[in-house]
């Protein structure tokens, strides 16, 4: 057997793209990045990009062309690292939330808010009933279909996360809240209406459009899913409203949450074939395959017991640090999960989340080790099977 390996979504944007997008002149370090990574990853015709960038003024490349180059590089990085399922590290999206609301109607920007430390995101307010401006992943997907050597999985920001990451200036009461001790029921009703409107009016038409173009696997990203412990049913309803009746392999990405909160609500997510979930962030860095050795993975038996038997995308890379997980550490995390699940076929291997906060060097090394760790786990299982057969 072999473990399917895949990425989650974002990768850092290469410095030549960041600077070019900002209209800043490129220095030797940015050019060297394009040159060295192009060579290292075997990006076709990368010399052409480097020569063009060397001319200054982006060599006359328009932003869309630059974006396509970045997509090519990121795609090759993931493929060269050995992942079976890939995308382009969301090179052409501003950011997972901002890209979605910027291409939808009914939202207005409200400035920059801290995510953690020196990381931030642009936050918008919903000011009218949301609707889709135009399908906003079609162009990138069509391009990637034309250049990818491995299978693609398209990350799409989910309805609940869009709702819970937005300020509400439309659905809830705008005055009369002070000292009124508004019950949660009023807030919950507003959030449900908001999330379901996003699911039906924004996400679902996007998914339909991608499926029409040939999408086989779509990952609904819901990092905000457990933001409110008493809104898990809204998350589930919005997922179901987004995908019900559509023919595609749908998965959900969850991260950095108290995963116990998801149960039993997600028992109703019958359309979800895989949950890819970040665990390494809370795990020990020591080797070991027992429950005591793997505290970050304590909750995985609950995913195992879901009635519709989804696969588990096992997060084995902590994306918040430059610590490079060894292949042996990845192996032990996988083998522990196999032990809990009893069925290796239900285990996929992935990072905890997108790697956009890490440098390409760190991300590449982590991913290579992840793939090697998956292979070590396969060998270990093959060895134990052979041993048992004897």
């Amino acid at each position, binding site marked *: 057997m072999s473990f399917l390996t895949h990425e989650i979504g974002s990768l850092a944007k290469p410095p030549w793209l960041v600077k070019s997008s900002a209209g800043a002149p490129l220095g030797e370090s940015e050019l060297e990045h394009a040159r060295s990574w192009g060579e290292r990853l075997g990006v076709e015709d990368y010399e052409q990009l480097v020569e063009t960038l060397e001319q200054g003024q982006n060599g006359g490349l328009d932003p869309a062309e630059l974006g396509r180059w970045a997509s090519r590089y990121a795609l090759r990085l993931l493929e060269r690292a050995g992942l079976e399922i890939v995308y382009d590290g969301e090179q052409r999206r501003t950011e997972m939330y901002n890209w979605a609301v910027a291409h939808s109607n009914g939202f207005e920007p*409200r400035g*920059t*808010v*801290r995510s953690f430390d*020196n990381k*931030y995101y642009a936050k918008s307010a919903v000011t009218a009933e949301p609707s889709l401006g135009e399908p906003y992943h079609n162009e990138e997907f069509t391009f990637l279909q034309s250049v990818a050597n491995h299978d693609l999985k398209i990350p799409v920001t989910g309805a609940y996360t869009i709702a819970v990451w937005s*300020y509400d200036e439309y659905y809830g009461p705008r005055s009369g809240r*002070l000292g009124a001790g508004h019950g949660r029921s009023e807030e919950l009703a507003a959030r449900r209406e908001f999330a379901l409107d996003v699911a039906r009016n924004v996400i679902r038409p996007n998914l339909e459009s991608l499926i029409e173009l040939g999408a086989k696997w779509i990952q609904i990203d819901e990092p905000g899913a457990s933001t409110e412990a008493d809104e898990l049913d809204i998350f589930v309803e919005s997922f179901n409203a987004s995908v019900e009746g559509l023919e595609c392999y749908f998965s959900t990405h969850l991260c950095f949450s108290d995963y116990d909160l998801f149960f039993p609500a997600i028992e109703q997510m019958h359309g979800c074939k895989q949950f890819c979930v970040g665990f390494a962030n809370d795990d020990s860095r020591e080797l070991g395959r027992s429950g005591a050795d793997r505290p970050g993975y304590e909750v995985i038996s609950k995913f195992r017991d879901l009635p519709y038997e989804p696969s588990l995308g096992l997060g084995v890379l902590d994306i918040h640090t430059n610590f490079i997980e060894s292949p042996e550490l990845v192996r032990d995390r996988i083998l522990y999960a196999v032990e809990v699940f009893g069925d290796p076929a239900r285990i996929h291997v992935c990072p905890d989340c997108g790697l956009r906060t890490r440098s390409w060097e760190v991300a590449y090394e982590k991913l290579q080790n992840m793939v090697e760790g998956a292979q070590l786990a396969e060998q270990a299982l093959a060895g134990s099977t052979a041993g048992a057969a004897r």
Partner: protein
Amino acid sequence: MQVLAPGIHPRSEALVQATRDLDRGRTSQEAVDEQVALDRDELVAFQQQAGFDLLADGMLQWQDLFRPLLEASDGLEPGPLTRFLDTNTFYRAAHATSALPRLAGPLAERYLPPLPGARLVTLPSPFALAQGTGVTPKVIAEQVLRPALEGLDAELVVLAEPFLGRSDGAPQELGEALEALAVGPKLALQLTFCDARPALEQGLAELPVEAIGIDFYLTHLTDVPKGLGKLLLAGVVDARSSTLEDPGELAGFARRLQEEREVERLALVPNGDLQFVAERIAREKLQRLAKAKTATVQAAA
């Protein structure tokens, strides 16, 4: 009536960019520190001009409510990235490596910069800092927070408490811890982003502090005990909403607190850290807080 701005203030777009550049190796720590100083000077000047009663520095260097204390303590360290309540902002949860952690030295000046006037300081409450560490709030108070308070030049220390109102913890658990902190500055215990009713019913108002803080977007007016004998930090600006408050509504609510609940000492504050909105929105919210105070004072006159 007072207006105060405790908690972590959002960074300006210029400071956001500077810190992003720092992470990407495009600028120096010195350049970021200069921008922090500019942001802070502007925030302080704004508070002076708007009539805030104590000055706050905005905690612009604090990566979260706990980090500077964790980094300055033996036996405590920053743990995994953890979601802050129901926001999309994360913090490093405290992790104890010793049963008896202690502050190794005073907080660096970058975390408590000098200000040109009487000031307030915000620190985590002992219950909040002890969360998930296995160490009691009393030990945290005695070994970590008290050394931080000793010699602190502040008129008021606001102990931010985001967790108590959302947990099974009872205010009594904090009583002994707060007594250990009676070493100088007056203390306020602010329950941020929560319905304070259960805590009030269990004796929040009797805790040994000068002031208590309540979020009035989640707490009903009538839950405030009549004739509260403490300064009330009334959280009347919603730090998690982009909607701007109407100063008239704020002033009207302040009057209701004074008249219906017989609150004699009142300070209008945000209901938690303003860092959950962008800097320009936070500034406008503070402006409206100040206008509400002016309106209330004028109406009383």
